[in-house]
C-alpha cells in the first residue's frame, strides 16, 4: 500500500539523489539495502512524512502524503507510522513508561497505561517500566525503542539501521522482534540497513 514514483531529492547544491519506483503491499516485510549515502534514510524519511522530496509522488495507504500540509501531516504520521531509530533516542529523564506515554500524548492517542503495560510485556521489558533508559542494558533499550514505535499500533513500522553496532545474535534478535511486532499489529515493516547479516530474514528486498 506504499507506492513511490519518480522520487528525487536534492540536498543543497548537490546532484539530485534519484530513487527507484517502489511498491509495497499491506503486511509485507521489506528490507532496503544499500551503502551509506545511497538514499535509504531519505526514502524512509519520505514515506514517514518527515521529508518532502524535491520531485516525485508518494502514496501511503492511499494517502498522497505530499499533499498533506503541516499539522495534518504530523497527525497522520503520529497515527500511522512507528519509527525505530539507530540511536534509539529515548528521552533520558523520562521513565520507560513515560517514554511510551509521550508517544501516545504526541500522537493525540488516549494515554492508556494498560496498553503501555501490554506493549512492554510483549517485548519482555514490563519489569523495567519505572526505570530510566540509562538504567537499562543496550538490549533492553532496543526493546523499549521498539515498544515506543508500536504502542500506537501503527500501520507502518519503520526501522533505520536497527542492527548497526550489534553483535550477530543481538542483530538477529532485533530483526525478529521487529517482524514479530509488525505481525502482532498487522503492520507493514520496512527496515533500512547496510547490514548484510539480516538479508536472509526478508523475502522482499529493495537494493539501492
Amino acid at each position: 500500500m506504499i507506492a513511490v514514483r519518480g522520487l528525487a531529492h536534492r540536498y543543497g547544491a548537490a546532484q539530485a539523489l534519484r530513487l527507484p519506483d517502489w511498491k509495497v503491499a499491506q503486511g509485507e516485510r521489506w528490507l532496503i539495502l544499500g551503502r551509506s549515502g545511497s538514499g535509504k534514510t531519505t526514502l524512509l524519511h519520505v514515506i514517514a512524512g518527515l521529508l518532502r522530496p524535491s520531485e516525485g509522488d508518494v502514496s501511503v495507504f492511499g494517502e498522497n502524503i505530499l499533499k498533506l500540509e503541516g499539522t495534518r501531516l504530523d497527525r497522520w504520521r503520529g497515527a500511522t507510522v512507528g519509527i525505530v531509530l539507530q540511536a534509539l533516542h529515548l528521552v533520558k529523564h523520562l521513565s520507560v513508561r513515560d517514554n511510551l506515554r509521550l508517544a501516545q500524548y504526541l500522537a493525540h492517542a488516549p494515554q492508556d497505561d494498560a496498553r503501555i503495560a501490554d506493549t512492554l510485556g510483549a517485548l519482555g521489558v514490563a519489569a523495567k517500566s519505572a526505570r530510566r533508559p540509562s538504567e537499562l542494558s543496550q538490549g533492553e533499550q532496543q526493546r523499549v525503542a521498539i515498544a515506543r514505535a508500536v504502542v500506537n499500533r501503527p500501520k507502518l513500522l519503520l526501522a533505520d539501521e536497527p542492527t548497526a553496532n550489534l553483535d550477530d545474535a543481538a542483530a538477529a534478535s532485533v530483526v525478529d522482534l521487529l517482524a514479530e511486532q509488525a505481525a502482532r499489529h498487522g503492520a507493514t515493516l520496512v527496515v533500512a540497513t547496510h547490514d548484510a547479516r539480516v538479508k536472509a530474514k526478508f523475502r522482499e528486498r529493495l537494493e539501492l
Partner: protein
Amino acid sequence: MNLATLSAGYLRARPLQTTLSLMLLALGVGTIVLLVLVVSQLEERMQRDARGIDLVVGAKGSPMQLMLSGIYHLDAPTGNIPLSAVGLLAKNRMVRKAIPLALGDSWRGNRIVGAPKIYAEHYGAELRAGRFYDKPMEAVLGAEVAARTGVGVGGKFKGAHGLGSEPGDEHENEYTVVGVLAKSGAVIDRLVLTSIESVWHVHEEHQGPEDESDRKALEAAREVTVVLVQYASPLAAATLPRQINSQSELQAASPAYESARLFRIVGVGVEALQGFALVLIVAAALSVFIALYTALEERRYDLAVMRALGASPARLFGLLMAEGVVLALLGALIGLGLGHVLASVFGVWLESQQHGAVTGLEWRPEELWVLAVALGVGVVAALLPAWRAYRTDVSRTLAQG
C-alpha cells in the same frame, strides 16, 4: 502527561540552572512585592492618621518635624506655643476644628498626650472598657498600649519626662487608668490620652508653686505643643497658613505637603531598591533564556524524535514556551511568598519599635501586575529558544545520528 508535566520534567532534569533562574526571579519579585506592601501600607497609614487634619500649628522649627510630632507622634516636638493661640485659632472663621495637644511625657515608651475629648472622637475611637477621663490625672490607654503593658482600667502609672526610649525623671503624680480604647488602626492606638490639664498639673507640681500670685502667673504662662486644625472651607488653604506663619512664635505645616515631601525623600531609596529588583528580574530573564537556549543543543534529538512521534512544530514551540512560563510562574509565586514573609518580618520589627503599621497578611492589586510582568519575562526569554525548536529540521537531525 501534558504540556505542563512534560516541561516540568525538562526543568527538573536541569536542577542547577532551574534553581538559579527561580532564585533570581524570586528575589526580584520578592523585593518588589516587599516595597509595594511596605510603601502602600505606610502611605495608607499616614493618610489615615492625617485624615481630616489640614494644618498642624506649633512652634517655629522644621515643618516636617512639626507634622511628624504633631500627627504621627514620631519626632520630638518643635517646642510649645502659648495657650492664647488656641483661642485665636478656634475663633477664626476659616477653622472648623482646632484640637490642642500637650506633649512632653511618656510612659514605658508610649507618649502621653494631653488632649480634649474631640481628639479621640476625631479618629472615631471607641471605648472598649471603662469610661473617658473627666478629671485631671485620669488617663485612657490606646489599644496597643493596653495590650503591650497589660495594664487595664484601675491601673496606676507615673509619667516620665521626655519622649524617647530612654525616659527621663519620673514625675511624682500618678495617673489612674479609667478607660481603654478599642483598636482603631490609627495613631491613637499607640497613645496614652489624658486631659491637657493633667499635663499642666504634672509640670506645675514639679515646680511647686506656693502662693496665689505664682499660681496666677503659671496659669497665664500655660502652653500647648501643637494645634491640629481642620479648615471650614478649602479656601482657607490659601490664606490661613500665611496668616499663622506671619506671627512670630507660630508655624503652620500642611500634612499633605509635608508628607508628599517626605515620600519624595524616602522615594529615592525606594526607587534605588526598585532598580535593584529590576536588575534581578532582568538577570532572571537572561538566566531563563540561557538555560533554555543552551539546553536546545542537547535536546535537538529529543525534539526531532517528538516530531517523528507526531508532534507538530507548534507543539515544540509550545513546549519551550511552557518551560519559560512554568519557570516564571513558579519564580514569581515563590517571590510573592517571599515578599509577604519579609513584610511580616519587617512588620514584627516595626512593632518592636512601637510603630506597628506593616503586615505581610495583606494583598495589594499591584501584586497582580508584578505577577504579570514576571510571566512576561518568562514568555520573552523563551521566545527565541521556542522559535529554534519550532524550526527543528527533523529529517536532517535524525539522519545525523
